């Protein structure tokens, strides 16, 4: 039965997450500016901190336009699916021992299911826009997400074997002696790569590769619907950072500081790392990306799974 507490908790989570994602946009732009020998937005408020608010106000007041040639219901639905699927995933993220919406027994599976949902958003947007660039972007997104999803799941199974649970709080608690990043280093790297691919960030931003497809699947979107895609992308980056923290970096565990602080610190450093990646790397070609996925990462992920299982069984005997 949903209690009032739970409803309040969900409301609070949404109320915190959405503005945080908006702040993240500003944070990334400033950080990119720092990496690229320029300033970034520094005019609105102290250090430009209100830039996202200004952008949000502007975008809210924009004409909510739907191209006449688009498939209306799908066109409207697509950005909603994206943002909602990502928001739902946050329900199972354990930020601290008491701060989680649901400590589900199948938390990890729920997360994987929700990331798979998110791809519908991109594919449907690409389809419904009835625009060739959007279609190409949507096709790329479908191929990329489906292939990277496979080994995203496989890379997590090593952790599941070691901890013996799909429950995220169990996984965190199982890391008290050693973070899984050490025994599961391969899994960690693979999950990170798959995570970047899932959130469509450079170097895996092919569905919206600006220099090739102008804006890819969201070419025809503007105003609040575009903002939802944007929000989804940044929420996705936060989610992936939080999941890596939870599954591989010991979640809230850490000495001296309160658990939530440890959790946020680890998440923030991962986010900074993602921004650095964006500043540092060029974009591979689409077929090169898929080739890397199927020919290298998938076998490695499977090898990792088999090796982990073997070690686990060896230990039991």
């Amino acid at each position, binding site marked *: 039965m949903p209690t009032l507490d739970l409803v309040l908790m969900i409301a609070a989570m949404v109320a915190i997450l959405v503005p945080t994602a908006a702040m993240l946009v500003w944070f990334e732009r400033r950080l*990119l500016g720092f*990496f*690229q*020998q*320029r300033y970034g937005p520094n005019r609105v408020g102290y250090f430009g901190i209100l830039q996202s608010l200004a952008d949000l106000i502007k975008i809210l007041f924009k004409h909510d336009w739907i191209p006449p040639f688009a498939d209306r219901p799908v066109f409207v639905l697509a950005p909603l699916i994206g943002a909602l699927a990502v928001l739902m995933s946050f329900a199972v993220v354990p930020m601290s021992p008491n701060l989680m919406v649901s400590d589900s027994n199948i938390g990890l599976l729920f997360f994987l299911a929700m990331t798979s949902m998110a791809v519908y958003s991109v594919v449907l947007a690409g389809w419904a826009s009835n625009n*060739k*660039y959007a279609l*190409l972007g949507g096709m790329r997104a479908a191929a990329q997400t489906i292939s990277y999803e496979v080994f995203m799941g496989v890379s997590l199974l090593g952790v599941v074997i070691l901890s013996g649970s799909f429950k995220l709080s169990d996984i965190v608690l199982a890391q008290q002696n050693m973070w899984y990043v050490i025994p599961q280093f391969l899994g960690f790297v693979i999950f990170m790569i798959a995570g970047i691919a899932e959130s469509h960030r*450079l*170097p895996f*931003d092919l569905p919206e*590769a*600006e*220099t*090739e*497809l*102008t804006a890819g699947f969201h070419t025809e979107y503007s105003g609040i619907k575009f903002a939802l895609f944007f929000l989804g992308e940044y929420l996705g980056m936060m989610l992936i950072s939080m999941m890596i923290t939870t599954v591989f970096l010991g979640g809230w565990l850490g000495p001296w500081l309160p658990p939530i602080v440890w959790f946020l610190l680890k998440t923030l450093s991962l986010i900074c790392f993602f921004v650095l990646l*964006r*500043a*540092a*790397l*060029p*974009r*591979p*070609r*689409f*077929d*090169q990306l898929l080739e890397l996925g199927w020919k290298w990462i998938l076998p490695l992920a499977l090898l990792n799974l088999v090796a982990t299982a073997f070690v686990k069984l060896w230990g039991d005997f």
Partner: protein
Amino acid sequence: MQQVSTPDLLSELQPWLANSVLLTETTADQIPTFWVAKKDLLTLCDAARYKLDKPFTFLFDLTAIDETTRQHMVLPQRQDFTVVYLLRSYERNQDVRIKVALDQNNKALASVTSIWPNANWYEREVWDLFGIKFDGHPCLRRIMMPTTWLGHPLCKTHPARATEMGEYSLSDDLRDIEQQALKFNPADWGLTPQGAPDEFMWLNLGPNHPSVHGVFRIMLQLDGEEIVEAIPDIGYHHRGAEKMGERQSWHSYIPYTDRIDYLGGVMNNLPYVMAIEKLAGIEVPERVKVIRVMMAEIFRILSHLLFYGTFAQDIGSLSPIFYMFVDREKLFAIVEAITGARMHPAWFRIGGLAADLPKGWDKMITEWLDYMPARMADYDQMVMQNSLVKKRAVGIGAYDTATAIEWGVTGPGLRATGFDWDLRKKRPYCGYENFDFDVPLGTRGDSYDRCAVRVAEIRQSMRIIRQCVQHMPEGPYKADHVLTTPPPKERTMQDIDTLIPHFLGVSWGPVIPAGEAMMEVEATKGSNAYYLTSDASTMSYRTRIRTPSFPHLQMIPVMAKGQMIADLIATIGSIDFVMADVDR
């Protein structure tokens, strides 16, 4: 420079023509020039291309002149149009100019596209701007002007200014016609339909697209993401620069040249003023030459740095462009200190420069030259040695030397194929023979090599600039010549014989002797040449601007076939063009 004299070349060419005689013309630029009868054009071209020992493999330029209002005629008999072919033989290191006279009532000529494939766009341009038809051309349609345009702009009868054209209004009917004209129909482009209609997708890349560097459109026939056919469409940036040349005084046209290759700055002034100086017989002082070389090389670095950054950006690397803009900014500060402007200084003058170098110029340049090598080393690691960049660029958009010459590629794109031909070495102008520098070459002729050659050229340009700083000669910054514009002023207040030419030169502008001259420079993007025809007037009779980017874009279909879209982006990023340089 010219190894074979005109009579020698005449004796080589004449035997191929059985019943007609080649007429010889002498031009100010000493390029052997022959008039051929219209019916013999193809025979002569075929001989020059295939039958001569050391043939003329490269069609450097193809243009026309409307002679209807010309006072100082070259041929005794009346002719209305002249079509001019400039051919080059790399083996001989020699050019030859072939002219054909055409009558107003029969403006048609045989096409040479079967001999030089790059004649295709040049002939379309001549058709578009002069209304001269080319029989046997595969797809003779307008290239610069909209398909709905009436008249042929470079004809003397066509108005040159909006005020001469009457009021313009866009009625609904007209709008519909114009919109209809923009619809893409493959058959209009000489294509025959193949496969089922739903088998392929036509994608319109441009005219507004982040990666086409301006307003440039490529129609792509796609099979999935693979390119089956690519059709470049230009003309969106056409501003009638050549027509404007006929309405500006020789002097006041200089700022227009800045805006042809808008990244090249004073590099564009150089071939223009050199061509006028050739016509006028002005010999510029040594100091002028060294300063010109120095400024031109500074702009080569500025342009190459922008290319380097955008090339990296086109393949998804976001940061390098920002670092390179910082370096360019520092260099622009120097350009501004010297010329007073940044991107378009219009600083060279007929017979000299606008001003002498300011105090402290050498210190600024030396500081920049000392600062830059460390940055270049960083960029090597960030871009050139990056394995993702290599994966995206090595082997992509490759062509060999023969294909490059066939399609009229010049500059770094040609040298990337391993062909050692730099105008500054082979035909030194402006005193380049006095400088010590290397010509960087590639081996594979792919996108990566085109970038690598330019990066190496930045380093060579820095060497040249350092030599300029170390050995800057003293002396005047203007030639002591009556046609120098603006003329040296020292003696004007002393004697009337100097005051009068000074007054006329400043008010009407200089009158350049009749004749024609073409001067070429190794510009940032390839060979840039100005072919000026003077009718002994204060204005040019015909200003032909041969730009490197024009043939480079024509070659895109050759490189694009079979590529993925992402490869095409890397390929066109590696060409280094600006649309102003293509459309003029």
